[in-house]
């Protein structure tokens, strides 16, 4: 028994030593570690901040009405909640600093305090009420207003169809909209769920097969804005981009009228050859070029492909060199996409490139 008691005392003494030892040495360690962590944070925040500032397609760099409302809401909500976060951090730092040196005999034995607990239940409740009010208010402000510019969007694996039915054309992966007019789109999907998102214009809305959703916003700043599919939709979800260009109403009207025209007649020698070649090979079974015999609807409409900025839903920028690469092996650029390799001699590939680039 005595042995056990001695052993216990020795163990207890060791524990005290460990505690004391931990006190001396670890104060240096704690400072070093705190500095290390604090510095990683400062670097992270700096990086994040610089990266975030005035970049595209940044949610915090709005160019449309809806994105503006949402940014305001985000700032309001984040500001309120940061106060909570910083309070927690300050309290944590305080209890740590005060508590590490306290001997056990001085540890208090309080088990609760009803008044304090009520206070820190009610304060979060109040904060939640305020946040909820702000949320509801912004949600109502974003409800869909009457639209003057209207088109349909259909999400496909892995490209975006823009259908201007009343104006008589379809295009793909690129759409122009006039600034300062409300845009209203009907959103559908041809196969699986996709999500239509232009971060600088507003929030995203899913395109769900069997259902028609709607999106509405008013572009406020002219420019070119990136859009992305934002719901995992299969192997090429990562390269299902599109571009929305905000232009003056005059430019918009001109674009719409031009898009309604059938395909341009090719003029260059190679382009003419390409124009004669293309309907004779497989292209027309998937693609449409209005004014020719190619009427496929499975793949993007190519009638005015030459005036678009991207290939394969912006998997590549539209240049003749890139288009040649795409035609030679679309699977190398966008593995798993729906366009098969079509083996052709180089000469014919170049003719096709020339033709497609003349389809402005």
């Amino acid at each position, binding site marked *: 028994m005595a042995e056990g008691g001695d052993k216990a005392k020795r163990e207890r003494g060791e524990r005290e030593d460990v505690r004391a030892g931990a006190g001396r040495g670890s104060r240096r360690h704690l400072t070093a570690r705190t500095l290390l962590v604090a510095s990683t944070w400062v670097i992270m925040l700096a990086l994040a901040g610089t990266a975030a500032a005035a970049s595209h397609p940044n949610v915090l760099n709005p160019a449309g009405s809806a994105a503006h409302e949402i940014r305001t809401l985000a700032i309001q909500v984040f500001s309120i909640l940061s106060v909570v976060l910083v309070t*927690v951090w300050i309290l944590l730092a305080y209890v740590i600093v005060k508590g590490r040196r306290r001997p056990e005999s001085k540890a208090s034995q309080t088990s*609760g305090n009803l008044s304090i607990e009520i206070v820190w239940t009610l304060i979060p409740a109040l904060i939640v009420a305020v946040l909820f009010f702000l949320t509801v208010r912004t*949600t109502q402000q974003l409800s869909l207003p009457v639209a003057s510019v209207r088109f349909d969007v259909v999400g496909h694996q892995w490209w975006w169809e823009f259908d201007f039915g009343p104006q008589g054309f379809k295009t793909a992966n690129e759409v122009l909209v006039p600034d300062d007019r409300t845009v209203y789109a009907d959103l559908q999907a041809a196969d699986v769920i996709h999500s239509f998102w232009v971060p600088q214009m507003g929030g995203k809305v899913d395109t769900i097969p069997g259902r028609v959703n709607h999106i509405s916003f008013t572009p406020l700043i002219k420019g070119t804005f990136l859009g992305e599919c934002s719901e995992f939709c299969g192997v090429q979800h990562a390269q299902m981009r599109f571009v929305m260009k905000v232009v003056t109403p005059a430019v918009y009207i001109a674009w719409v009228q031009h898009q309604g025209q059938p395909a341009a007649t090719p003029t260059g020698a190679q382009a003419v050859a390409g124009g004669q070649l293309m309907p004779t090979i497989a292209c027309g079974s998937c693609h449409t070029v209005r004014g020719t015999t190619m009427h496929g609807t499975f793949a993007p409409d190519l009638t005015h492909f030459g005036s678009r900025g991207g290939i394969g839903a912006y998997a590549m920028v539209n240049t003749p060199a890139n288009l040649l690469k795409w035609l030679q092996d679309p699977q190398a650029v966008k593995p798993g996409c729906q366009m098969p390799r079509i083996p052709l001699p180089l000469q014919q590939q170049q003719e096709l490139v020339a033709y497609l680039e003349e389809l402005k």
Partner: protein
Amino acid sequence: MSDVILTADVAAEAARPQGLGAWLTTTDHKRIGVLYLCTGLAFFLCAVGMAMLMKTQLIRPGMHFLTPEQYDQVFSMHGTTMVFLFAMPMLIGLANYLVPLQIGAKDMAFPRMNALSYWMTLFGGLLLYSSFFFGGALDTGWFSYAPLTLTAYSPHDGVTFWTISLALLGAGSIMGAVNFIVTMLRFRAKGMGLWQMPIFSVATFINSFLILFAFPSLTAAIAMLYLDRHYGTVFFNPAKGGEPIMWQHLFWFFGHPEVYILILPAFGVMSEVVPVFSRKQLFGRSSMIVMLGVIGFLGFLVWAHHMFATGLPTIFNVVMAGTSMLIAIPTGVKIFNWLATMWGGALRFKTPLLFACGLIALFTIGGITGVMQASVPFDWQAEDTYFIVGHLHNVLIAGTVFAVFAGIYYWFPKVTGRFLNDRVGKFQFWLTLVGFSITFLPMYALGMMGMPRRVYTYAPNVGWNTLNLVSSIGAYILATSFLLFIYNIVTSARSGEVAGENPWRAWTLEWATTSPPPHGNFRWLPPIRSPRPMWDLQQAAAKGGEADDGAPLMTLAAAAGEAGTVIGPEPEQSTIAPFFVAVGFLLVAIGLLSTLVVTAIGGAFLLLVAAVWMSQHWTEPMAEDMSRHRFSFMGLSMLVFIGSESVFFAALIAADIHLHIHNNSLSGAGHLHATFPAINTLNLVLSGVAAHYAQVSYRRKRIGAFNGLLVLTVILGALFIGGQAWEYAHLGFGLSGGLLASTFYTLTGFHGLHVMCGLGLLVFLFFRARRERRLELGTSPGTSGMVDAATYYWHFVDAVWVAVFIVVYLL
């Protein structure tokens, strides 16, 4: 005298069998807990490896390290593994080990079912991973939205493997939940009320209800997906009247409570660790318990916040935003209570407390970004971007994983008798903290900069390159810290500093026994008068002259002059039956993936092993005081299980009604004849009456009447099934006959399956009762419990039929 008892039992512990056979046949909750923990850690390493593959691919745009197909499998399996094969097994493993110890019990209420739960989990995980070898694993994300998951868009078997594996995992989890609930309701040590259980046990108790009510929704969803993929049903096929969005409702009704399932036990660990290392009792214990319940309850009311962008009605979105924000209140209260616990305490910064503080500092960021996303318009920007990826990892790593680390550093001495190396632990903590911060905090920025999630590459000229590179570097640091953790475990298990019974001088019952505890857990229990029995004992011992509260238990007992309760050694019962039942389920599962012949073999094997299980000689580890209860723990467990199955049928019925609302042409009343089924219903109702009187007869010990009425119940039930079969044969459409066929066959089919299981149960009960009568035992408590259980189940099946009948034939 008491020391002699303890020494003798430690010797007995060393003689416990250790080989593979011992581990395959164990029913000891502590060994099962260790199995769960080791399995969880093994899958953790797999999932971390997958994370490293992804982060390497994303170092810069246009990397060809992984093909898109590979990347999609990796991100899908990473998520599924982390949720179902790491986090859940770790938390359930800790709970398995600790709950019986914390409540002063010898084991769980159903030790064999406990083992079965583990083997189901292991086999489910192995089956899931086998998909890599059979045409590719799941590649549609851990929440797998339809219709991408239908065979038209996902022809290979990965999705099917996922559905079947999840069914195995879910079954194991639900069995575990029933086990925990019944154990804690019925087998607490004398003097410990439900409210006095340690908070980790309370958290597990509440968590078990979440598992019980959430998983059936997943089961319903994956059953429908499996049928859509392989039997031509059209639940999620929009071309045939199905509704893709219904998958999301069903999945997230499970999925959101699932993340609370992953955090409630973590909060429980916090409430154990923070007080002990602050040398101060938990502040606001009552409110902590209430808030756990509030979080659990509210967790079922928020699922559609994952669907804000799907175009649901605004009012619905706004309500879900409100309920989602409400959860911030109980969570905030808990954070403040932990801070208040530390306030005025004497903080001892061992590794567990470091992780606890890390949780308070960093989990709160995740909580805040969660509330931001509850704000619907902001979510419309943040949803499906890296902002969400940052948020979810923030709460899961700085929440669940930090708490798991804290718990393991805290309880490792109890489980192995050795400390984890604390210096390595502290270094690991800081490395994890730094690694986590560098990996995941930039993701919030990336999300705001427009980067979507689940992308194998990204556009090279939009400004995302630097932060992705930084995040990937952080991931390497974080992964290293995890390897360090594993290293600590492996080396400390062998050569760590020896720990005694109560090395942390803690206050709950798991510390009132040896490290590790013997089979049966305790040889002596202190009197239980408060939530901190060991604190009370230490205080009494101090008054009696023993100042060291870390002294051996018997020393404290002697100094305190407490007689306590002496408990004899518990003989170990080992059986291979749980393992083989799991094998049976695995065969059934494999058959569903290949050919139904294997399913039939598996089913037959199951029946055989189940018969062996139910007739093998088995002594319940703990006796119930039946004077205080209306029905035995067997009956109770069936009632709990029925709660779970009710949600399964509710999910199927809800799906049916949803489809009705969106498809005017879908009408059972219009296309089905209700007369025959209505008559058939009489069979089932009469059988329910017979079952009731059979139960009454058994209670009154009128065995002849009992036998007769039982046979009548079975005959009428069989007639019902026969009638169903006749109806199926004369319907004129099969499973692939369209929307009505899909809903009709699933509702009546799953109900019929439940009836057949019930018939099996009743038949078995008949033979068991006859065997006892032959042995002149009269009515035994065990069989009485089974009679209760079988009758409740049968009444449940009756009640469900009424609901199914109305929905299928009259709507």
